[in-house]
């Protein structure tokens, strides 16, 4: 077997990056993986949930199909939080992925397996999905590059929904050049996803951002090591001729609640279909009233966090609460888009750390309350809520653990971000853990 295949198996067995992998690699093809919420013919698609055990979609998600068309082999499905519900990939029914830099720490989430695979396998391209930060987070904790395109840039046909107005398919890999190449492959309109049909064509080339904005509100409550690493990174940007200015964006504090309300409201409707009929886990004992039947399957199959988000989302759209929570959050999203636009009039991108801390230990995670966990998304949520493209890049190492920074650009300007990422890579050397399968 090839060295690459050994690495894939290693990533699966030792780091639980994959839920399923192929038996062998095809000659002449490049290898890529897909998060387990992307449907692929020949694989189960369980999205980290027991309720989808046995679901074998008879079709390929469009991004997977496009990767195959240019010579890619789908080598495996990567582990994730159930339906994307998590920041640490600890809410998975099919194994919790372990960080490539430290087995006792989280890969981030919800595309944790994708982060680990991208880090452990050189030349590997991992398709991830972000709703509120699920590409940036794992990229940051696993020390890889993660691109989350503009909402609607990549078709969601074949993606198992979390929040349809927030979900974005993106890429994780060791380098921006690898991502730049495959971003072109998966982008573009697809009649099977109407929201992908509103995009402008990709330009030939991006424009190197010359001016970065740092919202001061984003620098509160950071781990001190992350804060100082981030300031070093800003200094390095200045060295390569990029202007950095502090700005104020007071509306940022509304992003987290608006995001969680919209995401869970949509999720609670998306998850209504999982009821023991038709697909995934099918209940055979039919001699029950349908309400009991549905309730039984759902209560047994959904994990703790899935239930919490279903409850939260159901509440936020109920009569009497809907306008205070759901409708208000829609309006707040528009407000944030306008505020980003104001900043983009004078600056090419917004930059912040990606996560407020480095990859945490599992034992620390187990002591976190749900609200604290949601708070960890505070920096990744704003661009996700507003559909702005963003990229997370490794920018420092603290006690051997990677620190990520996140650049956000205006809608459709992914290529500008990739220019910045390519320039960054010339100025800063990435490190990857030594692996000997």
């Amino acid at each position, binding site marked *: 077997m090839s060295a690459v295949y050994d690495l894939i198996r290693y990533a699966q067995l030792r780091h639980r990056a994959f839920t399923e992998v192929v038996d062998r690699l095809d000659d002449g093809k490049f290898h890529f993986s897909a998060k387990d919420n992307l449907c692929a013919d020949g694989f189960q698609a369980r999205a980290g949930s027991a309720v989808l055990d046995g679901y074998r979609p008879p079709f390929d998600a469009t991004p997977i199909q496009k990767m195959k068309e240019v010579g890619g082999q789908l080598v495996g499905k990567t582990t994730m939080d159930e339906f994307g519900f998590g920041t640490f990939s600890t809410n998975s029914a099919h194994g919790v992925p372990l960080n490539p830099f430290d087995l006792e720490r989280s890969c981030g989430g919800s595309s944790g397996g994708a982060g680990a695979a991208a880090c452990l396998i050189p030349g590997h391209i991992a398709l991830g999905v972000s709703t509120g930060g699920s590409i940036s987070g794992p990229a940051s904790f696993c020390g890889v590059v993660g691109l989350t395109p503009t909402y609607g840039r990549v078709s969601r*046909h*074949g993606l198992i929904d979390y*929040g349809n107005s927030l979900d974005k398919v993106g890429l994780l890999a060791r380098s921006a050049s690898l991502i730049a190449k495959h971003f072109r492959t998966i982008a573009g309109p697809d009649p099977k996803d109407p929201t992908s049909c509103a995009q402008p064509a990709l330009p030939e080339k991006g424009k190197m951002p010359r001016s970065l904005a740092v919202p001061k509100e984003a620098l509160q409550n950071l781990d001190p090591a992350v804060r100082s690493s981030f300031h070093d990174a800003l200094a390095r940007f200045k060295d390569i001729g990029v202007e950095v200015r502090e700005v104020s964006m007071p509306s940022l504090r509304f992003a987290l609640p608006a995001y969680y309300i919209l995401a869970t409201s949509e999720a609670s409707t998306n998850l209504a279909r999982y009821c023991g009929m038709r697909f995934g886990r099918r209940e055979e004992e039919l001699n029950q009233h349908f309400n009991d039947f549905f309730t039984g399957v759902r209560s047994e199959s959904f994990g703790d966090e899935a239930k919490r988000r279903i409850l939260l989302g159901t509440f936020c*759209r*109920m009569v009497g609460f*809907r306008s205070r929570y759901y409708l208000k959050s829609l309006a707040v999203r528009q407000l944030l888009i306008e505020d980003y636009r104001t900043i983009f009039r004078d600056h090419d991108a917004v930059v912040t750390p990606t996560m407020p801390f480095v990859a945490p230990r599992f034992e620390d995670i187990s002591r976190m309350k749900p609200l604290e966990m949601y708070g960890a998304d505070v920096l990744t949520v704003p661009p996700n809520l507003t559909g702005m493209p963003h990229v997370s890049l490794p920018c420092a190492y603290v006690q051997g653990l990677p620190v990520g920074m996140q650049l956000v650009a205006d809608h459709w300007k992914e290529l500008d971000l990739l220019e910045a990422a390519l320039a960054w890579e010339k100025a800063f050397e990435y490190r990857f853990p030594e692996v000997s399968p």
Partner: protein
Amino acid sequence: MKIGLEMHFQLPTRSKLFCSCPTTSAEPNHNICPVCLGYPGSRPSLNRKALEAGLSIARFLDCTIEERVWFSRKTYFYPDLPKNFQITQYESPLGTNGHFDLNGRRIGIWRVHLEEDPGRIKRVGRSGEEIAFVDYNRSGIPLVEIVTAPDLTSPEEARAFIDQLVIELRSLCGLEAQDEQTVRVDANISVGEERVEVKNVQGLRNLEKALKFEAIRQTKLLAAGKKVIRETRRFDEERKVTSSAREKETEEDYGYIGEPDLGEFRIGDMARNLDLKETPLARARRLVSSFGIGEATAKQLVLTSVTLTDLFEELCGHVPPEKAVSWTTGPISGNWAVLQDRARWSDIIQIVKDDAEGQITDNEAKRRILSLAGVQQEAAAEGGDDLAKLISDYVDAHPEVLADYRKNPKAANTVIGHVMKESKGRYSSKEVVEEVKKEMEKRV
């Protein structure tokens, strides 16, 4: 008495509302795909034709049409609903605040919107513990929902309303012919203060029966000094009674949210640019006011044939309207199927004109028209007995028509249609109508 209706009609598309599955009838679960089964990873895309048909209806009903609309998810759990939410329109229907003229009375239309149909359930197993056998062929079939104000005043009027609405919509956008039987209606009815909702009645006949039952029930309650309880009732088709629908175990909270997979639709221009055909009853009203002909005659004309009505209007340019009427409802109507194919309009018009100007006799004119149709006058003259026999044979063979006729004289239309078809144009529609009415009255 106040009655308001919520009607669901299937729109005439070839593919479903949100996926490309065919809408034709098929074996169970043959017209299905991941989208209409709600498979994880599938997503909807809107059928242009369905949107256009819905907008035609909204415009025809003179609704206010917003510039921008979107779809919503109505979440509830039921085995026939694949996603356990239905994609419908909530805050932003296609049209609001329209009206329909029913025999000169204005019936308010509250809203017109699009939604997807769920699947169909067959109950299988021992009585009381039947399980569901679900066929998802209908899942995603495009429906238009039309909601009226409580402006209807009797069960008969409610039925007439749908009857006439269907005639108009059929011509407007090609609604299926069997819609009188398949239309699904929720009706609100109040005799006194409190209203009762009768849910999910299928077909016009059932609707009228359900409403009549409900009207009597409420009247009796009130007469006895009792109160009508505000509730939802269902109609039992076999026993022909309404009964209180046991409140669902869980009172659903639909928790409407916007459907983010479809985006939004700027329908203003689309609606304005639609070319709306003149519908039959609207045309009849115009004929009455433009040419001063009788209402019944105008209706008979437009419902017989669009092209015959065209000829009528053409004739009115050459001869007085009463002449045009007597010819188009008389000898021409009786042979229209053939004339339409064979004769040049100019020839027909010339004959009628010559007759009107006294250049030829009525009989000669009639002979010429018939010869245009290739009918020998002798044969036509012999037809008398034949017509009566055709009618009585049919009524003998279809006793239910007579039963219907007792309740609603419109049932005679079935007989008229049959005889017109069978006699292949040997008799004018006027002759047939008169003869059928005579026969039916004789028997009733």
